[in-house]
């Protein structure tokens, strides 16, 4: 298969299992985000792909070739580190041409490629500047250009945008995604920022405790999370308890949800529903009775916090959809069955 395969990779540090039996296939040209809370093993997994850590068990296979035992410098990859790791004693141009120089490219080739890359990252004319004289965003781009200089088979990035401020980070996410699409290069980014993953990835891999919890396209992860951990980690969600009555109907907070069924034999489960899917109506027979306890008007959206049957439910809507909800108002909470995701406990 063309692309990257991780075959049952495990990494142990002493008694601690950082990465636990990870199996993943990444087709050529895919943009993958490894997403998870800190300590979930995502960086260790990336470092094993780069060859900077050796797996305790399992194999890394690139384009059908087992590269587990190939040392880092012979893997022909490009990697951007969290600290960027630009060489402080070299100029911008010399940083970018370093991998070419190592491979014995002629001075001419080096200059030509460096010029191309500088144009690609919108920094033409910066070749002779010292790295220390660049701004954070510019350094970021130089690190990216350096990693791409040899047109690597794999482009790896470890929390690449975490040092930038929020606005610049959002802009760089778009830029990075466009760059990857232009070059068609297999890319793996480690991040703990779910917005970053949603913006850039073809495939989001959510990790927790060293295991892959779910690997799917971003919108599927968002719409159909595999478990409560994923549902909670990606975006915000309402996690409610759901039980089955004798007739097999799903009961949430004492109210039967028409059209929603629990899998056969399951008496109790978790239900995840995104805030924007929760509708608020007048109190009625088909709705859960609730009281508005807080309204957060953010201008673009209105977040309504409803207390219903001992649980807190958040509902998000635009001001146009929900013009006058007041604190203390009695409402009926409607959970559309098509938006409810039932998760095994």
């Amino acid at each position, binding site marked *: 298969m063309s692309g990257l395969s991780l075959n049952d990779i495990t990494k142990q540090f002493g008694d601690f299992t950082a990465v636990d039996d990870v199996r993943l296939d990444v087709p050529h040209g895919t943009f993958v985000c490894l997403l998870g809370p800190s300590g979930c093993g995502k960086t260790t997994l990336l470092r094993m792909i780069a060859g900077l850590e050796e797996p305790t068990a399992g194999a890394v296979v690139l384009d059908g070739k087992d590269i587990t035992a190939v040392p880092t410098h012979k893997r022909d990859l490009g990697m951007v580190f969290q600290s960027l790791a630009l060489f402080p*004693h070299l100029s911008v141009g010399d940083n970018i041409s370093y991998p070419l120089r190592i491979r014995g490219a002629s001075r001419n080739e080096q200059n030509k490629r460096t010029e191309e890359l500088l144009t690609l990252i919108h920094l033409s004319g910066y070749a002779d500047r010292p790295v220390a004289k660049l701004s954070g965003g510019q350094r970021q781009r130089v690190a990216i250009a350096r990693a791409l200089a040899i047109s690597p088979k794999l482009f790896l990035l470890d929390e690449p945008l975490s040092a930038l401020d929020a606005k610049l980070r959002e802009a760089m996410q778009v830029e990075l995604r466009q760059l990857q699409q232009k070059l068609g290069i297999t890319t793996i980014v480690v991040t703990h920022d779910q917005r970053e993953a949603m913006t850039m990835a073809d495939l989001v891999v959510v990790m927790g405790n060293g295991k892959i919890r779910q690997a799917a396209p971003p919108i599927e992860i968002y719409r159909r999370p595999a478990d409560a951990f994923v549902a909670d980690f990606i975006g915000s969600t309402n996690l409610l308890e759901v039980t089955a009555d004798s007739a097999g109907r799903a009961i949430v907070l004492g109210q039967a949800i028409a059209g929603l069924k629990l899998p056969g034999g399951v008496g109790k489960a978790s239900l995840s529903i995104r805030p924007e899917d929760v509708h608020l109506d007048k109190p009625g027979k088909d709705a859960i009775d609730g009281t508005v306890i807080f309204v957060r008007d953010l201008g673009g959206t209105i977040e309504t916090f409803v207390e219903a049957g001992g649980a807190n439910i958040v509902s998000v809507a635009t001001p146009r959809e929900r013009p006058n909800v007041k604190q203390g108002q009695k409402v009926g909470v409607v959970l559309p069955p098509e938006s409810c995701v039932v998760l095994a406990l």
Partner: protein
Amino acid sequence: MRREPPRSLADYTPLVFPALMLTVFFVIPFSTMIMVSFFRRDPAGFFKPDFVVDNYARFLSLFFGNVLGFSLMLAIIVALCCVAIAFPFTYLLTKQSRKVQTVWLVCLLSVLSLSEVIIGFAWSTLFSRTAGITNLFVWLGLMTEPQALLPGFGAVLTGMVYQALPYTILVLYPALVRLDPTLLEAARTLGASPIRAFLNVVVPALRNTIVATLIMVFVFALGSYLLPQILGRPQHWTLSVLITDQAIYQSNIPFAAAMAVFLVLMSLALVGLTLLVGRRENAG
């Protein structure tokens, strides 16, 4: 960092204490030495105040020129050997666990507690024919019969490198500990083998530290006067040995002072040249 130039006299007050120390411990003794170097020797007593350049004139001979040249060369070789050994060693040390590092550093510090005399005699025993390491080599079958490895240039060099090595490591250690380890990893992901990455990235990133360490060991080695006498032949004696000889055994303080002044000026010139070359390369 932007600094404003000092405006009033009060802005210079932080300089008073260092200036005082420099005056008391450097300017006054060094001026005295320069003064004495122009005095005339009095065989009956010590010296007589005068202004003669005989002491410097006597110095301008082939013999002293050779000794000066040898002293500078020895100090340079010691400095290069120390940094060449200590830099990779310290680098590997910083990769070890905290505990291993502490044990090594404590051992190195304990070497510093040995005096030059003890180091000299320890090495002269180790290099001797009767009790030296060559007996060990014979026992291992590497040599047919034990040999004396001293007196000789190798013995002098070994002793001086041994003496200066702990200082070298202790000076390099903080800089190497602070070095960002991802720089090396980055070089490896970009296609450099570990050794190449070390030479391409670690060494240049710490160039200023290396130059400073070279100068420190050089100056340290230049002042060594016991080890060349214990471990070397007379042709391995450095200018410091001759200064000691003139000052203590020949009671010719003015001539010793003249040689000392000359030695200080030569080493200052060499240090200045190193810094100048370093700055030019940095700018280029």
